[in-house]
């Protein structure tokens, strides 16, 4: 469990709104990034993020603390995102395809910061290289890397979220890294 997580949960359970806001602040970007990874659309990812926190708020009393809060939340995030994806796809596949193409059009809800010029120069090369290589990965592999490297989740947590075995986590993660390595090499050549 992360720092403060237990205390946060306890406070939210008794209806402490401040604690709930702190939870939102702590996890909003991470939830959003997971949702975006599935939905590939900013406004859908934003809706999903809201849904996740509404559900967390609503069901936190049912949250059994034998799994960690973020594992529980990411499970919800995945379910909510897949739900939204299915609904949209059923609604109008044509329309969704259009939106997908226009994903660079930013919604009002998401504010994009621009890094300082110095930072940009220093980090540009690795950023671009990484972004290009990451983009080539399958969604499964991307999610695997995101959960492991960025969310710092254990194999057990990842296995629980994705409902797969720890062995599968290990081999999928390994393939994700080997593919990434390959794509980075391709970029260098």
């Amino acid at each position: 469990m992360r720092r403060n997580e237990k205390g946060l949960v306890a406070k939210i359970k008794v209806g402490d709104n401040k604690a709930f806001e702190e939870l939102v602040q702590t996890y909003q970007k991470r939830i959003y990034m997971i949702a975006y990874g599935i939905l590939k659309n900013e406004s859908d990812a934003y809706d999903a993020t809201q849904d996740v926190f509404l559900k967390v708020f609503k069901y936190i009393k049912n949250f059994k603390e034998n799994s960690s809060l973020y594992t529980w939340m990411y499970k919800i995030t995945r379910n909510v995102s897949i739900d939204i994806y299915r609904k949209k796809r059923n609604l109008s596949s044509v329309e969704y395809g259009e939106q997908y193409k226009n994903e660079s059009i930013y919604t009002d809800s998401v504010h994009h910061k621009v890094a300082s010029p110095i930072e940009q120069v220093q980090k540009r090369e690795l950023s671009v290289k990484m972004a290009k290589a990451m983009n080539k990965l399958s969604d499964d592999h991307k999610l695997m890397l995101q959960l492991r490297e960025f969310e710092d989740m254990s194999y057990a947590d990842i296995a629980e979220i994705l409902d797969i075995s720890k062995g599968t986590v290990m081999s999928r993660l390994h393939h994700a890294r080997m593919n990434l390595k390959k794509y980075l090499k391709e970029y260098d050549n």
Partner: protein
Amino acid sequence: MKKCDFIETEKLTAYVDGELNDKDMQEVANHLKECETCRVLVEELEELSSNTLFHYEQIEHSFELPNLIKDLNEKLKNTENITEEHTLYDNIIEFPKEKIKKEETKANDNIFGKIYRFAPAIVSLAAILLISIIISNNKPNTTTVNTQAKAGDSVTIDSLEYSKFNAMIYKTKDKNKTVIWLFKENNDNDDDGPI
């Protein structure tokens, strides 16, 4: 560089993550002392790890969600805008009975603010249920009703009434749950009974 077949390469990934058991961690560590091929791969995997973290941190720092909390609070407060379909149990928040009794002793407005904010999403459902629930003017402590939301599901309701809303403790036969839902009192409907 020589190809190494001493170790399954997947194990190296798990080694980098510290996810092997003690025995396997030791085995890989011993092997790395002797095998340059695997040593290089482990170094590469470690670098990939930190570059991937860097990649996601870049993304994380590239945007803000300045309105999310505001939007969430709006959604939590504004019950009229809830259009998604709800199932009966989906909308009921479990609420310990002791808590309710405690709240009962406080001022009405205070309770309204607190509980209403705590459980707003269920208000619209409760409004639907209200149609099919007979609330007598005698304000009975306990009444058995059938709900439209789940036909034939018999529930027992302990009704608590305040100036701005009603709160109910709700039990069904098959689900041994104590729950509460709330709704704004609608004076127009008071005497109408079920529709």
